[in-house]
Each structure stands twice: as structure tokens, then as C-alpha cells.
């Protein structure tokens, strides 16, 4: 599909067209945080930002989500019987999503949707109804390491369109059929613009100098990595606070709870995290991951060993660097993985 050009003075018309029949969201500055916010018009569009403080996973996997409801009255017709929540009514578009976050959603597709039984209706519904328009990173952060985990600052996987900022205009890379429809009517890109975008891509990739090595992690058996002495050092610092899991675009663990208020009952799911002691505790009191070391090891092993083993080599990390920035005790995932690989 031919790439297009979107002049910045035409952004208004592009956004208006996008908003026809859709809710549009984009990163915006709220206080000193970059936050996913509803986009009213192109004037509010933030172009100069590194990434949102939190990942966009909440659009597909909300922090709290009602899954089903029931009449909490055994005598009512259909009382106590669970009824699914309605699906998303209005389609959505996420504009200026970073390539790493789009890739993360594609990794999560492999987990939420596997077969007939493992087929998360809530995730699938919102994914199907959401258009993803990426904004390529021309200026990655020092904490970014996407290029070493099957991703990159101009990566296209998971996106419908990718915008590359060329100054007064964007090169619009058309990636999917859905993206082609959204970009219909835009003028085609010229050779010089393609060259300029390719140069920006190469420059951005060259700026990412720190990464992780995966060769030995892939080659080693589970038990060799599991029993490696490095976990004794990692767990000394780790507080099991879960900040990393909260900001991570691929962390997807959840809990399911029932809530009742009078005759209204519902079953909700909430983000949960593997750093919690309760996460794995049996009803008997036995806990298979009873120590802090067990739990911090689980997070790294899950992302860098278990997911690649089970999901055809895909890594449960896209190198966004949020956990590196936010860990209160400065645990750097790059150092941990390089120790696993060392």
C-alpha cells in the first residue's frame, strides 16, 4: 500500500474525519504527566513528548472492568444467573501511540486470544474496534531498548498507520487495510519524503545504544535460569511494590472478584500482579511462590523465558523503558536480562 503525506496544516481535517463515528484519544500534557486523553481537535495534539507515563493497555484491558452482571435475588426471573456486559458501542482511534506500545498490544493478542476456549471476549472486542495510528520516535529516551527486543522506534507491527514527523508534514505509512481507509484522500508520498523518513529511522535506531542479549536466555533450559545465583541479588533490592507491573504495557495479570450492592451484582476483573504474596496462595495456606525471590524471578522469567517458549519466540517486553524509569530501587530490566544472558 502506497504511503501518504499529511501536511501539519491539514491535521484538523484528518482528525475531524477520524472522529466521524469514533472516539479519538491521544497523549496530552496534564500537569507534568503525559496522559492518554480524549482528543477534541487537532489543536490539542501533543507532538513533542517521549511517551505516555502509563501504557495504553487500559483501553483494551481496563484497570477495573465489569465482565458480567446478575440480579442478586434468587426469586427474580433469571436471578443469580450471569449475563455478559454489552460490547463497546463506539469504535475508537488511538492517535500518536508509540510503536513500542502498539507492538505490546500485538504481543498481548497472542496471550488473550489463543483458541476457542482461551479467547478473551472483552479484549477481542476492544481490539477489533480500535484503530491505532502510531507516531514514530525520532528522539528515543536513554531508557529505551526496543531495538533489542524485536521492536524499534519506527516499528510498524500492531499499527494501522505510522506517522513519521518530517517537520512541516508527516509521512503516513499505511500498514493495514483499516489504515488505508483512514488515510484515503491524502496525497501520495514522494521519493524524497520516503528517504527522509528512512534517515530519521536509522538515526533513531542508532541513538539506542543499550539493550538486552537474548541468545543464551533462549538457549538455556528453564531450570538453569531459574536456579541462577543472580536472583539472590535482584531480590535483595526489590520491594515487590509492583510499580513495574503497573506501568508495563505487556503485564496482563488479573484478578476476578464479585461485587454486590442490594439486588445488583456484578463480576469484575482488576489488574493484579505477580509481586503480591496473595497472588498464588492456595486456600490451604500453601504458597508455591512464597518468597520475594520467587516472585521477582517470576516476572523476569515470564517475560523473557516463558513467553518466548510458548509464543513462538515473541518476548514479553517491548523495551519501552517505563519500569527502568519508575522502579523506586533502580532495578534495570536491561541489567537483569543481561545477567540472565551472561
Amino acid at each position, binding site marked *: 500500500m502506497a504511503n501518504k503525506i499529511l501536511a501539519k496544516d491539514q491535521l484538523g481535517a484528518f482528525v475531524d474525519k477520524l472522529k466521524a463515528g469514533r472516539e479519538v484519544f491521544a497523549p496530552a500534557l496534564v500537569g507534568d504527566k503525559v496522559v492518554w486523553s480524549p482528543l477534541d481537535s487537532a489543536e490539542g495534539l501533543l507532538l513533542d513528548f517521549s511517551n505516555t507515563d502509563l501504557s495504553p493497555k487500559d483501553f483494551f484491558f481496563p484497570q477495573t472492568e465489569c465482565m458480567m452482571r446478575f440480579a442478586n435475588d434468587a426469586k427474580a426471573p433469571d436471578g443469580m444467573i*450471569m449475563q455478559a456486559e454489552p460490547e463497546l458501542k463506539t469504535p475508537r482511534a488511538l492517535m500518536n501511540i508509540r510503536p513500542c506500545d502498539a507492538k505490546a498490544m500485538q504481543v498481548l493478542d497472542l496471550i488473550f486470544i489463543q483458541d476457542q476456549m*482461551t479467547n478473551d*471476549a472483552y479484549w*477481542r472486542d476492544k481490539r477489533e474496534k480500535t484503530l491505532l495510528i502510531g507516531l514514530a520516535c525520532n528522539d528515543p529516551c536513554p531508557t529505551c531498548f526496543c531495538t533489542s527486543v524485536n521492536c524499534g522506534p519506527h516499528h510498524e507491527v500492531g499499527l494501522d498507520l505510522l506517522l513519521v514527523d518530517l517537520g512541516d508534514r508527516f509521512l503516513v505509512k499505511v500498514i493495514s487495510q483499516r489504515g488505508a481507509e483512514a488515510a484515503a484522500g491524502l496525497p501520495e508520498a514522494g521519493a524524497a519524503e520516503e528517504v527522509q523518513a528512512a534517515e530519521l529511522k536509522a538515526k533513531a535506531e542508532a541513538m539506542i545504544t543499550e539493550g538486552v542479549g537474548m541468545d543464551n536466555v533462549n538457549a538455556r533450559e528453564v531450570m538453569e535460569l531459574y536456579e541462577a545465583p543472580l536472583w539472590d541479588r535482584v531480590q535483595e533490592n526489590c520491594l515487590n511494590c509492583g510499580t513495574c507491573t503497573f506501568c508495563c504495557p505487556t503485564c496482563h495479570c488479573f484478578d476476578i472478584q464479585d461485587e454486590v450492592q442490594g439486588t445488583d*451484582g456484578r463480576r469484575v476483573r482488576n489488574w493484579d500482579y505477580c509481586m503480591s504474596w496473595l497472588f498464588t496462595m492456595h486456600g490451604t495456606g500453601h504458597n508455591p511462590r512464597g518468597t520475594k525471590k520467587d516472585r521477582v524471578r517470576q516476572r523476569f522469567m515470564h517475560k523473557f523465558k*516463558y513467553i518466548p517458549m*510458548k509464543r513462538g519466540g515473541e518476548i514479553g517486553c517491548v523495551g519501552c523503558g517505563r519500569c527502568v524509569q519508575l522502579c523506586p530501587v533502580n532495578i534495570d530490566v536491561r541489567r537483569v536480562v543481561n545477567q540472565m544472558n551472561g
Partner: protein
Amino acid sequence: MRNTYIPYPVRIKDTRVETEDKQLKSFWLEFMNPADADAFAYTPGQFAELSVSGYGEIPIGIASSPTEGQDLLFTVNKVGVVSNRLHNMKAGDVMGVRGPLGNSYPLKASEGKNIVIVAGGFAVTTLRSTMIWLLDPANRAKYGEITFIYGARTPGMLLYTDEWTSWQQSGQANVNVTIDREAPGWTGLVGFVPSVTEQVAPKPDNAVALICGPPVMIKFTQPVFDKLGWKPEQIVMSLENRMKCGIGICGRCNVGPEYVCKDGPVFTKAQLDKLPREY
């Protein structure tokens, strides 16, 4: 496509307190919609999420066998919020069942072999399902000798006594039921499951062992099988871990890369020997 988080509505048909401490209670469940019963096609070893609206869900092994008809049997230990509520429910009450979940005991692959079943405590549930299935006239002739070893703390803690007594009397299986210590009126075997297994000494030739029990029983039974010359591929174990989604997404029941809810709960010892002991 079906939303696999929504439980099938079922009605409690019958209940029975199973043990002298009243901690274990059985529930026969009847599907409210006949189509759901057809959709719930299961094999021995699988489990289901029992749903009690307003309280939550619990993963419980299916104790009935598909050869017994469409009603489902679950025997539930009273330990948490959901199981406590369930113990207070009665025939006629409406609840939900979600499944069938997980894999099964390798019964198809074990045709032509001798089967040794080892059960400890209330983990006998899915092995009851297996025994009923194996002894069904349509299936019994496909298997060699069937040895059933089952232990509980006291005679009053044994489940399904009428049934294993009838298996013993019919001569269709070699039944060895034991209690931990001598008890008044008990004339059967006495001793822990591992030592009784050693006495029964099932031969590894052309055989498969299906084991389900508390971690401590599994821990001490494995070396007995090793000593008797069994290979890790012949020893099949059913695990349990805390679960929520039951379909391999929510992230808590994994043992290494394997989700107990989806890749298990049934694993061979050969598989588990390569994995962390996070169960």
C-alpha cells in the same frame, strides 16, 4: 464466538456431606439449558470453575464421569469464601459452571496398559471419575489390570466408600484403601499412601500410574515408583494451583512456562522434572 468467562447456569440437584469432619460436601449439578450440557463435553481429569454469584469462582476437579450422564458431581473442601457459601447452598439453588477446563488423564494413550491409580485425601475426585470411566462396560476391556490405591486420615474421611467397596467386590479392580492410623472397627490397610504403594508394588511393565494427592503425598510417593523401576514418562500427576481465569491468561497458576489450568492440570513426571517446583 462464545464468551468463555460466562458460566453455564446449573441447579443443585442433590448434596451430601461426605466426611465426619463435615469439611467435604458433594454437589450434583444439573444444567438448566440442555444445549449447555451438550457443550460441556469432558473427559476424566478435567476441572471446572464453580461460580456462586456474589461470591466468586473456585476451580474444582470434576468427580463425575461422562459415562454417568449429563449431571456433574463435585466434592468441595470448605476453605474459603466461595466454598463456605457453597456448603450452605441446597438442592434447587442456582449457581454456575464454567468449563470443562484443562487437559485430561491420558486414557486414550493408555489403552492396552495396566493402570495404577494413587489417590490421597480428597484429591480422589478426578480419580473417581477415571475409575467410573475405566470400569464402564464400554471401556473396561481396553485396559489390563487396574490397581486402585487410596488413603485418608481416618475411615470417616474416606470418600465414595460405597463405590470403591463395589469395585473391590466385583473383582474388576485391585482395590487397596488405607487409613493413616489404626481405628476402631477398621479392618483394612493401615499406613500412609507411599508405604502402602511400596507394599502393593505395582509393576512398571506396560503400565501407567495416575497420581493425585496433597503435595506431601506426591513428594513421598514419587521415590517409591522410582525404586520400583518406573520411568518418569509412566508417572502421571495432576497438580493444583490458585486460579482465576482458568483459561491460561490471568497469570498465577503457572509452573515455569506451563499453566496448570490450560497446559495441565495433568503432567508427566518427565515434564515436571524439568520445571520449578512452584506447586
